[in-house]
């Protein structure tokens, strides 16, 4: 209950932020695979301090949106601004260095590296001292104690839930300004999902902005301030998460009630 009051406080501060310019803006981007339109011109804003959820059915274009923001695809038209600067022609590794960090669909774990090596690679772009990086390992282990026990193991031996923890932990090692998460709850037991979602809330409270892609619409809308609904490459609905949760169409299509 307490957590929700805090989110409410945050949502008002996000409203105030709207006076200022957004941290990340997607402006009318179109993305194609061959001649198939995956995104038909979508726009989206993310303000400093927000958790934004992007929900939609399979194949709606959610992952494509994140991959385009992080530079793995180039839109055929439209623009993406981060802190006011266009990043559509910036290379993926440079975008990461700007602080837009993407934990990809399928978790993106290097299964041939150990847990600790994965975390170290997460800090690859940083110019920090070994000591700072060691402190950050400890921070990640405090969020996900199970990773600490398994730090010397090859990541390929981890369970799905542990891999998801590693994926988020590794993204956090990059000190994100904006964390892009692609379906962190996919295929996980409810308990692990709760752990993951509470970590997302925690890092958000500590200052990280989050763009969260989810099919688990209920839980995503519960922790976010605003949401966007994507259907076959178009944003069909957007608004405060609390309002989306009570929206009839959303309830029928995504919340199963």
């Amino acid at each position, binding site marked *: 209950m307490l957590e929700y009051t805090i989110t409410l406080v945050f949502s008002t501060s996000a409203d105030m932020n709207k006076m200022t310019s957004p941290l990340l803006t997607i402006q009318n981007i179109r993305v194609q695979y061959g001649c198939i339109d995956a995104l038909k011109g979508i726009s989206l804003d993310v303000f400093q301090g927000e958790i934004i959820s992007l929900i939609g059915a399979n194949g709606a274009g959610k992952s494509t949106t994140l991959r385009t923001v992080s530079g793995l695809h180039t839109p055929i038209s439209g623009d993406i601004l981060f802190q006011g600067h266009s990043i559509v022609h910036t290379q993926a*590794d440079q975008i*990461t260095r700007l602080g837009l960090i993407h934990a990809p669909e399928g978790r993106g774990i290097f299964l041939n590296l150990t847990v600790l090596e994965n975390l170290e690679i*997460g800090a*690859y772009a940083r110019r920090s001292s070994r000591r700072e990086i060691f402190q950050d390992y400890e921070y990640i282990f405090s969020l996900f104690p199970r990773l600490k026990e398994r730090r010397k193991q090859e990541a390929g031996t981890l369970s799905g839930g542990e891999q998801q923890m590693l994926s988020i932990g590794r993204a956090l090692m990059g000190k994100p300004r904006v964390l892009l998460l692609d379906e962190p709850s996919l295929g996980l037991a409810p308990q692990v999902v709760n752990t993951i979602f509470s970590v997302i809330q925690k890092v958000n409270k500590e200052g990280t902005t989050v763009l969260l892609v989810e099919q688990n619409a209920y839980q995503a809308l519960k922790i976010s301030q605003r949401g966007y609904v994507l259907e076959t490459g178009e944003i069909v609905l957007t608004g405060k998460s609390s309002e989306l949760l009570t929206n009839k169409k959303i309830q029928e299509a995504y919340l199963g009630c």
Partner: protein
Amino acid sequence: MEEFLQHVINGVSLGSIYALIALGYTMVYGILQLINFAHSDVYMVGAFVGFYAARFLNIADSPSYTSFFTILLIAMAGCALLGFSIERFAYRPLRNAPRLNVLITAIGVSLFLEYTGQVVFGATPQLFPNILEDSIIFSFGGARVTKMDATILVTAVGLMIVLRHIIQNTLLGKAMRATSFNRHWASLMGISVDRIISMTFIIGSALAGAGAVLVGMKYPKIEPLMGVMIGLKAFVAAVLGGIGNIPGAVLGGLVIGIAEEFVVGYISSTYRDALAFSILIVILLFRPAGLLGRFSVEKV
């Protein structure tokens, strides 16, 4: 028995050279899924770089460890630069092209180097400078270990230990392993994939340069097509060990080196070169992923 020991010694020495060259094939394959046909010609250029450097520095006839290490380093640096340039100018523009295009380009680069080599270096064989005095350092059970063989082995093993350290323990090595696992994910970590690919070519080519100097010392006849046969054997070594697999390349190189010495010693030197191809056929038939490789279905 002494004959047997001698063959093992010669085989390990030869095999360690195959391994050095095989590493370049396997590292590039691990990151780009490309068989870099030009690798064998980088090796050839390494021998000529050593040849001309020795002449230029006037150490062609002053054998010593100083001469040896000087030539070794210069050849490695020359090959590193060549490997870097090949990747930068021939392969990088094709980064998003179908793999077959890159493969054909690699064959083109290989032919380009071979025939440019014939124009620049001349087609007639040259004699690699005498940069290390050979002598027997010890014998046991009738088998002799020469200074040459010992130097070859120690140099090759030393380089492999350095490589292992880079790959296992440095941030560069970890980034190389991450990139070979999934290039796109690596770029999401802030890794510049182009830089990692360049480093892979630089390291692999430098190892080929070292191999060229080691071979040049032992078999001093060098000519622009000298890379073809040894390159094929090193490639077979990489496939035998499991292409893309670094310890596999070392194992494959040693197996081929030793097997070749046995074939020459106990059967006939006529079959020296046939052996590698027989091994290639057998491995492709029975264990296409190689000795240490994991099987994966390749989409060509």
